[in-house]
């Protein structure tokens, strides 16, 4: 009893000092996150730029965005399509490879390193440049196809293909998700799978009935994070296709950047950024609903 009192007294003492440790974050949060967050909401009801004084316009920005801006909906559509191509592609691929690597493969470290490498570089300008060249009309990929007597494909110049070609860049970086799935697979008790096998379940059945459900929290969370990232994609459209052809790759991130910093419509861009935030909030809410299933703490969650 005395002991318990002692520690709880200590913890009361601790209180104040903890604020000192978290003080940098409190300041940073207020100055660099909360303030800009609120400010951008206020901006979204104004018309202004660094060159123009702020003018309150009510809901005009939102009205124009939803009803008067054809590019806006085109961009929303392209972005959703991009997310739909890139994210499932990446995750399914990552899952398949993780399952294969989990089958007592030798040299697993070597394969993991090789597959992970593109994830280190994927976000860089250098890789965007590389992609632009590989998939150019007279680029290497087409040269390889011509060896197989397949006619050249306009990977980045065709309205229908350009988004998919950019999605391929995301799939190429499947290593980052694969590593997470591998960690998840390691946590599935081997006895569970052995027992099912002894009972006569085939490999596919085991995968769909045991592995997949056990891994589903990791998959689901990954899905959300990848979607958020894909919704914000900027480098690929800006560097590889400049949003073309015919705005078919004019992704949301690029539209935001152009409105804010090229056309200097900062109020309007703020409104658009809040719409992005709204979409991301929906996906985040889904992720957090799932949190009881994918979080596990040594200290029982109460720390």
């Amino acid at each position, binding site marked *: 009893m005395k002991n318990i009192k002692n520690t709880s007294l200590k913890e009361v003492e601790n209180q104040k000092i903890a604020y000192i440790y978290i003080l940098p974050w409190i300041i*940073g949060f207020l100055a660099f996150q909360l303030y800009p967050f609120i400010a951008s909401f206020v901006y979204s009801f104004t018309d202004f730029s660094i060159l123009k004084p702020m003018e309150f316009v009510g809901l005009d920005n939102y009205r124009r965005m939803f009803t008067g801006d054809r590019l806006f909906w085109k961009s929303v559509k392209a972005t959703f399509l991009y997310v739909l191509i890139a994210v499932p592609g990446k995750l399914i691929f990552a899952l398949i490879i993780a399952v294969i690597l989990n089958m007592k493969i030798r040299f697993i470290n070597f394969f993991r390193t090789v597959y*992970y490498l593109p994830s280190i570089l994927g976000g860089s300008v250098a890789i965007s440049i590389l992609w632009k060249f590989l998939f150019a009309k007279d680029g290497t990929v087409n040269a390889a196809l011509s060896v197989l007597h397949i006619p050249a494909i306009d990977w980045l110049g065709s309205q229908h293909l350009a988004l998919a070609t950019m999605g391929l860049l995301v799939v190429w970086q499947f290593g980052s998700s694969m590593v997470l799935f591998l960690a998840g697979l390691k946590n599935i008790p081997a006895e569970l799978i052995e027992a099912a096998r002894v009972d006569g379940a085939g490999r596919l059945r085991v995968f769909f009935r045991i592995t997949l459900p056990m891994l589903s929290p990791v998959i689901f969370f990954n899905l959300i994070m990848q979607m958020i990232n894909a919704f914000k994609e900027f480098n690929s459209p800006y560097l590889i296709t400049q949003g073309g052809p015919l705005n078919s790759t004019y992704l949301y991130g690029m539209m935001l950047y152009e409105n804010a910093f090229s056309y200097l419509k900062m109020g309007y861009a703020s409104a658009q950024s809040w719409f992005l935030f709204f979409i991301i909030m929906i996906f985040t809410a889904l992720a957090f609903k799932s949190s009881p299933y994918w979080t596990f703490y040594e200290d029982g969650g109460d720390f």
Partner: protein
Amino acid sequence: MNNDTLKRLQHSRIRRITRKGITYLFLILLGIIMIYPLLWIVSASFKTNNEIFSSLSLIPKVVLLDGYSKGWAGVGQNSFGLFFANTFKMVVPTVFFTVISSLLVAYGFARFKFRFKKALFALVIASLMLPNEVIIIPRYMVFNKLGWLNTYLPFIIPAAFATYSFFIFMLVQYIRSIPRELDESARIDGCGSFPILTKIITPLCVPSLISVTIFQFVWRWNDFINPLIYISSVKHYVLSLALRMSLDVTDTIAWNQTMAMSVLSMVPPVLLFFFTQKFFVEGISTSGLKG
């Protein structure tokens, strides 16, 4: 054992071996496909413009070092040496302050009980989900007023105030896995909370501090949109901006220069990855978060 069972055993062994063989073949082929683009850009950096497009071979007919020497000389008066130096000037302090500030804050959250802790930690998580795109315009206005544009302060100062909340989250997870008995016994020995942090928690956190370092280094090194917004004068350009510029400028002139500089720009993150691979992979798996 009769002949029949022997045959069957042999059969299943052959089947197993073939399956293994096919699996390895697939993994190796996939590895080649994954690495091919990287090998291609390295080889292209030594080729002539003509050969870059026409030839599939990874081995250049004539090895040209032009791309590197002329590319390094850069555009106008600014060499790539300057852009490299600038990138380090931006990335190194940012990483350093990220590690220090995130560790302090994570320690505060992981080891103390205080009022509003749950709410505050929920804010850390919430800010993790806050897209940069939403706050970038007001941030730009603030940094503009403070005269921080064309400096690296928009990267370094927020790092010093622990605003890369992903790392706080990652370190909190890690510190929570360290047994509390360790600090309890140190406290009984009269250790204050700060010595506990420096003498007990920090040494045990080294693997996760290394993965914070690598992640932040690679992300800041590759960062393009933020420098694009905050840095406008060429003499302060970082590599990502310089590469973009060379892509615009060279137009049909000398692609091998762009390739060569792209290759060089990838060297530091790749080296870092190879030297600290173990931590890198572990870091992601334990944090279980970023993809």
